[in-house]
Structure formats: C-alpha cells, structure tokens
C-alpha cells in the first residue's frame, strides 16, 4: 500500500471552467474590475484628457518610480513582513551614487555602488528582524530614520545635480525613450514585474515565501530556513528601492535629500489595493501592478475632472478603504 503507482491513472487535465477560474483569481478579477470601472468614469468625466495618448505617456513616465518598488514589497508582505524604510533606502543609494561619482567620475561604478548599498540596507533590515526577533514594522521605522539621517548628514553642502548623467548609456537605458516615445522606466517596471512573478510563482524561494507567511511554524517543521528566506526578501526590497531612487533622480537630473518621501504610502497602497493580505500568505504581482496604476491615475484624474488637488487624498483614501473591504469580502466568499 505504500507504493504509489502513477502509471494506471489517467493524466490530470486541468479542465477550464469559468467558475473555477473566477474562484482561483477572485481578488485579481476584483481589482481589475475596479480599475476598469474607474477608467470608464475618468473617460466619461474628462474625455478631453483620457482619450488622448499624452496622459498615458505621463502615467508610464511617473508611475514606475513607486510601482517597481511595490513588486518586491509584495513578496515581502506575502511573507508576513513589512518595510517602511525603502524611501530612505532610495535616498541613501543616491547619496552613495553622488559620493562615488565625486571620487571616481564613473556613472556605472556609482550605479553599482548605489545598488550595493540598497542590498546592504535590505540585509540590515532582515538581519535585525530575524536575529533579534523584532517586528519588522518597528525595526524598519528605526532604519527609516537612520538612513534618512545619514542622507541629511552626508548630503550637506553637496551639489545634487545629475546633469552630467544626461545622454550617458545608463541614462538612456534607465530613463530614456524607447523608439523616441516609450519611457524606459515603464520597460523596467514590466521587467521587474515579470521577474517578481517568476520568483514568486516558479521558484522554491517563492513557494517558501507563501508558506512562511501562511504558517511559519509549518515552514520550520518542513525544513524551510525561515530566517534566510525573509532576509533575502528584505534584500530584494532594498536593491530595488535603490534602483528606483536612481531612476527617479535621473529622470529629474537632480538629487533631492527628501527623495522618496512621497512614495511610502503610494507604494504600500498599491500592494494592499492589489489584494495582498497584511497577515501574509496571500497576494499577487498582477494585483499590485493594477493597484499601482489605480493609485497613479487618481491624482491626474481628480485634476482632470475639474476638482482641485486637495481632493486627491480624500479620493485615495476612499478607494483604498473600499478596495480593501472588497478583498476581505471576496476572500471570505472563496473559502
């Protein structure tokens, strides 16, 4: 009885049924409907703006700055952890970029140094959380202040201009225009989204992320190295935050010491809007991707439909609350 023969069994065919599909992808379909619904409202309310390509180029130019960070952050949140320090990691990466450039005058070297610092800052977050058992929410509030403080100290009396990067290959690859129109940062967003999807759905690392977020004790019993996997997830957020910092700064050709401060809530909102559970174990890259575009479009839309910019936050809040309620409702229905 303990031998299992697989030969006599007809192969398992994944029969497609609409019901099964809806059940399996409920939250993703939910957020997609919210997205399409909002889009139709925007088009009806401000046809002059939303039927012309310019607004979409603008979205593709600005949304990736925070959307690319939302991808690894989704992975981290699925593992049941949180990171509030990534805006400061964006900035410390840029400080190291500038310092390295002053020293060696090499853009590529500066870029590599920025990514390395991001990787290190991520590792430090993970190390503090895993080694000392401190909740990541608390630990990363600490590192957020620490890195921002380091930025302010190190960036004193430094010229933040990045004009020298204009036209270099790195500039063209990161924030240039593909075929003269398509913003390269959008290409990077797609690349990072695809890589994150593969990592999460097609590697053991991803399988362990879901498992740790769902039942950490079970993961340990089954021989998963919880600590290592969580540290790796923090490192992913760190290195991508540094990349996002370089992209956002090259785009405006200037480094502001406050870099990243506006991105904290937008990035987190994208993740939760996309249906990732704050309790861990559940979440998708697709949901976050759509969530980021909803967040990015609201700001432009409120102005385009004739409301003042003051309305933006109110509408943000409303849509986030309603979507999160929708996700919680859908999740219960599917169980």
């Amino acid at each position, binding site marked *: *009885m*303990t*031998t*299992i*023969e*697989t030969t006599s*069994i007809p*192969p*398992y065919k*994944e029969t497609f049924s609409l019901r*099964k599909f809806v059940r*399996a992808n409920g939250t993703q379909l939910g957020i997609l409907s919210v997205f399409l619904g909002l889009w139709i409202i925007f088009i009806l309310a401000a046809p002059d703006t939303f039927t012309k390509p310019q607004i979409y180029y603008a979205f593709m130019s600005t949304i990736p700055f925070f959307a690319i960070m939302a991808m690894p952050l989704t992975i981290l949140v699925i593992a049941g952890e949180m990171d509030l320090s990534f805006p400061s990691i964006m900035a410390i990466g840029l400080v190291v970029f500038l310092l390295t450039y002053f020293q060696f005058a090499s853009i590529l070297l500066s870029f590599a140094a920025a990514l390395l610092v991001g990787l290190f800052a991520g590792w430090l977050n993970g190390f503090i959380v895993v080694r000392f058992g401190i909740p990541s929410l608390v630990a990363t509030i600490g590192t957020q202040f620490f890195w921002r403080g380091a930025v302010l100290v190190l960036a004193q009396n430094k010229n933040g201009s990045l004009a020298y990067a204009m036209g270099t290959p790195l500039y063209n690859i990161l924030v240039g225009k593909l075929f003269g129109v398509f913003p390269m940062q959008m290409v990077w967003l797609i690349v990072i989204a695809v890589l994150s999807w*593969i990592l999460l*759905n*097609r*590697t*053991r690392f*991803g*399988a*362990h992320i*879901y*498992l740790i977020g*769902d*039942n950490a*004790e*079970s*993961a*340990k*019993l*089954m*021989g*998963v190295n919880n600590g290592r996997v969580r540290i790796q997830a923090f490192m992913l957020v760190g290195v991508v935050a540094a990349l996002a910092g370089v992209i956002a700064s090259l785009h405006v050709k200037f480094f502001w010491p406050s870099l990243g401060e506006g991105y904290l809530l937008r990035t987190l909102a994208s993740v939760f809007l996309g249906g990732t559970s704050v309790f861990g*174990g*559940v979440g998708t890259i697709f949901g976050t991707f759509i969530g980021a575009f909803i967040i990015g479009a609201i700001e432009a839309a409120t102005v385009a439909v004739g409301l003042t910019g003051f309305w933006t936050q109110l509408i943000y809040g409303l849509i986030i609350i309603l979507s999160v309620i929708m996700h919680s409702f859908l999740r219960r229905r*599917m*169980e």
Partner: protein
Amino acid sequence: MENRLELHNVSKVFGEVQALEDIDFHLGRNEVVGLLGDNGAGKSTMIKIVTGYHQPTSGEIYFDGQKVEHLTVPLARQLGVETVYQERALADLQSLWRNIFLGRELTNQYGFLDVKKMKQETHSLMTQSMGFTSSAVNPDSKVGTFSGGERQGVAIVRALYFDADIIILDEPTMGLSLKETQKLLNFVRGIRDAGKSAIFIDHNIFHVYAVADRVVVIDRGRVAGEFMTKEISLDNLMEKMIRIAETGSFD
C-alpha cells in the same frame, strides 16, 4: 540487522528545564513502536530531535547503524524520516499541491518549479491514496476548506509520496471521526506490511495498543519502561500507566 534508528543517552535541556534525560531508544526494521506518556513527558521533544528540528544537548543518534552528527530537518528527510504532524503543520491558505510538496518542491532542470508535474502527482495521490472523491476537491483547492480527516490524509499522503523509511505519527487521531480513525489505524498497520518502520504517538492507549508491536513509556523526560504488546494485556498495560502517572514507577 541494525536498527533503523537508535538514540543513545540523549538529553535535551531548554534553559533550566530538563526535557529529556538519558533517553535510550531504538526502532527496528518492520516495527511499529508506540510512544506513551503524559502531557509534557517529553514525547514531542524526543520526536523533534529525531526529525532534526531540535538538536540534542548531549547524546548520540544513529540511523541504520551510522552515527549522524548535526541532524537537521532536510538531513533527516534525506535519511528517510517523514513526520505526520498534528494538523497544524498544514498551510491553510495554500493549495493542496503546495501543501503536498511543502519544503520539497519539485523543480525542472533549470531550477524552476515544475508546477504541472506537482499538480499531476497530487491528482494521482488524491484519487489513489487519499480517497478524495468529491469533485469540489482538486489540486488547486485551498487546504483550509478541508475536514479534519481530509487534512490528516494530506499529511499522511505527503509521507507516503516521499517514500519514507521511518514514518512518525504525532497524535494523528486528534480530531478524527470514528471511521477516519479506523482508516488511519489500518494505514499504520500497512506501514509494517510494507517493510517500513513507524513511531506512533497518541494519547489514546487503545489506539496505540491496537497497532504497535512495542510500547515505550516516557515519564518526566525518561524512559520508564517498555512492553511488547504481545506479552502484555491491555488491562495490565493500563494499570501500569495509571500507576506510573501517580507514583512515577511501575511497581
């Protein structure tokens, strides 16, 4: 022939608590050993040492006569130890196929998950070994929606699939219906028939007596005694268990 598993003078200390003291234990080939003991007697700690989850403070562990140092969970699994934990070891929000392959996902030659194969294998296991007939259950079903018996079935099938030599069952009848319990006990008898070994832990002395070849009684972190089930009557064993709970010795 060597024993499948031997523990020599194994002790485990947690802070100031002596959880296990000088445990000597062996598990033969083709043998089902029942572990009996009160709550906190040290049964679970002993099992977690065998599965590599805890490292012993002192003592030695042998698999098939070979001494093993620094036993870890992956190493124990490699050596053929598979554990059916109480149902808490399942990930409720994840699909059935993910639960079957927890911590040991199948990958293709490029190191990516072979999702199709894992679903296929899960489907085979479901129809052959788990006896899931409900059409609502498929490899993509979330384990959190399963009944207690179905969940235990998942944990057991996991052990079967990976072709374990030593199967450890930690309170496997907890939360099972009468019929499901019978199925489980039959399964444990089947382990012996298939030439494998098992350690069976249960609070219920009737269950243990029904399937075990030998019963080892653990009390306050020590081996208090052992009996061949052939040589002792159930009444006699129960009397001894009560006496040891009250006085700490059999006589």
